[in-house]
């Protein structure tokens, strides 16, 4: 399709109407840090581009009852510096702070990070570990989907042509909870994740693991929950030897999962995961309050 129109939207209603009207012909642009590259490489060729970067209704971090809600067009820099996200969930801010470079973080948005469907999206493992829910809107409907069910394939999410990701939300932190995030990249800035891991834990005073959720990046076609490792840890006391066993177990899972992948993945990630996972879990435990 030939690009005919770029529409700078100001209101959410306007966006939803345009999507209803144009459906497959339209694509939404927010920060554009992935979008513009895809456009240049002709991987996407929309007829209509709807720019949502200045739609205030999509740009917010707020408390809503028990939840924290983050608007889809909220920039990484805003998340990184948010005072609303608690110290216990600092891992989410860390994840946003690991995206690309300051320039990319000043443009790129959390909604774009999710909807682009990259396996290496930095904020998604943290949101998965928080048990986040995607709030999706269309002209006549609003629906909620657990983020872990939102992915279809590499680069593909469950959005109908007339739908937009409106926000993500997760339960605010409670005493005993913590989130840790670690990204292993090949350098300290502008790095695409080799592995990223976010661990959410809830413990009692004796470091018994009451609940745990693990989000991973760059270990599958899209960011996923590592439920087998979660099940292994749940109910156990998080002593060093238990953590060590869990990391070994995680490595074994990856050996199987990545068996068919190129050497740079299958000969590396099942082993490198151990250090990354341990650090993420320890970070989570260190911020539990």
């Amino acid at each position, binding site marked *: 399709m030939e690009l005919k129109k770029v529409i700078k939207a100001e209101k959410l209603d306007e966006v939803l109407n345009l999507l209803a009207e144009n459906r497959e012909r339209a694509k939404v642009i927010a920060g554009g840090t992935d979008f513009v590259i895809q456009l240049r490489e002709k991987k996407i060729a929309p007829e209509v581009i709807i720019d949502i970067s200045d739609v205030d209704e999509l740009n917010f971090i707020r408390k809503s009852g028990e939840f924290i809600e983050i608007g889809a067009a909220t920039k990484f820099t805003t998340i990184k510096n948010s005072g609303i996200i608690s110290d216990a969930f600092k891992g989410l801010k860390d994840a946003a702070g690991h995206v690309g*470079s300051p320039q990319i973080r000043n443009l790129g948005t959390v909604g774009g990070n999710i909807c682009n469907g990259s396996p290496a999206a930095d904020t998604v493992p943290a949101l998965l570990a928080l048990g986040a829910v995607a709030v999706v809107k269309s002209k006549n409907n609003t629906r909620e989907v657990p983020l872990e069910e939102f992915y279809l394939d590499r680069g593909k999410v469950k959005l109908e042509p007339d739908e937009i990701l409106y926000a993500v939300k997760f339960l605010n932190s409670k005493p005993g909870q913590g989130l840790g995030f670690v990204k*292993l990249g*090949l*350098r*300290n*800035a*502008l*790095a*695409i994740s*080799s592995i990223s891991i976010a661990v959410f834990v809830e413990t009692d005073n004796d470091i018994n693991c009451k609940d745990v959720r693990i989000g991973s990046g760059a270990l599958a076609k899209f960011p996923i929950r590592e439920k087998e490792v979660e099940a292994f840890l749940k109910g156990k006391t998080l002593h060093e030897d238990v953590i060590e066993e869990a990391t070994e177990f995680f490595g074994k899972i990856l050996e199987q999962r990545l068996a068919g992948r190129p*050497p*740079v993945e299958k*000969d*590396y990630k099942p*082993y*490198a995961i*151990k*250090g*990354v996972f*341990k650090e993420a879990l320890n970070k989570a435990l260190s911020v539990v309050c």
Partner: protein
Amino acid sequence: MKKRGKGIACIFYGTGYGNGFPDVSRAYAELQPDGKVAIYTGATEVGQGAKTALSQIPAEVLGLSVDDIIFINEDTSITPDAGTAAATRQTYNTGNAIKMAAEELRNELIKIAVKELELNSDIGLKMKDGKIFLEIYPDKCITFSQIAAMQEEPLRKFAVFTAQTVQIDPETGQGAPYWPYTFSACAVEVEVDTETGKVEVIRGAHAQDVGRAVNPTLIEGQMDGGFAMAMGYVIYEDLGLENGKIWNNKLSSYIIPTSMDMPEIQNIIVEDPENTAPYGAKGIGEPVMISVGPAILNAIYDAVGVRMTEIPVTPAKLLKAIREKEQKEA
């Protein structure tokens, strides 16, 4: 576990084309009507600072400020050939040619001054800020622009410098293939994550013999740049070559270090003037990179006891080597 290690390395490096190959630079120095001096030479500025350093040299010869040197290069229709900006040769080779041309111009200017000022000899004549004057009687003075006004054709001097190297004996490998040589040394401390194979260079010290520092700030810039390039070469830059296909064919996957990866580096400039060089200055373009790589590899060995013999030492390769060592020891 994170383990730290230290490593050092030192190198010597022959600058210039070498091995008897004719290594020639040419330059003109030309007096301008306003008393400034133009240098014409085919030296190429590729970001290394050639225009600055090669303007400082004639300014020094002629007692002018750098602002009074008009440096004309990279235009082959009006500049003489000065060879390539390669082989760490421009400061030494073209610097020499420019210095010689400027000296010729200086001698001519003095000769004219002696005549015009009706002096017995050139003894005690000084050249400073576009004026030639008698130190013991400064009223005896003539300016460059006054001399320029007297000329029918612009006063212009030419010089050629050819470096002295000898082809080595093809049978014995003996001879003097390069001149001058330069020396450098590097020390680094690294931190290796034994569980991910990631190497972080946490600090470095880097010493470079420069002969004479024509421009210390530019030299430090070259040293920082050489350090970064070597870090990229040794621990980051991987083409991902597989059956003739390059996987890392873009700068998002073929990665070079960013400022976030660079450690604090202590640069040490060593001045040991070279007597065939312009004011003793030798080239440093390439040598600033060479010692950094082996120093990093030595530091990795010191940290984890693994001797890496293939670069780049990517986290995947290093982790594999660390695991093999652990398995062997177990």
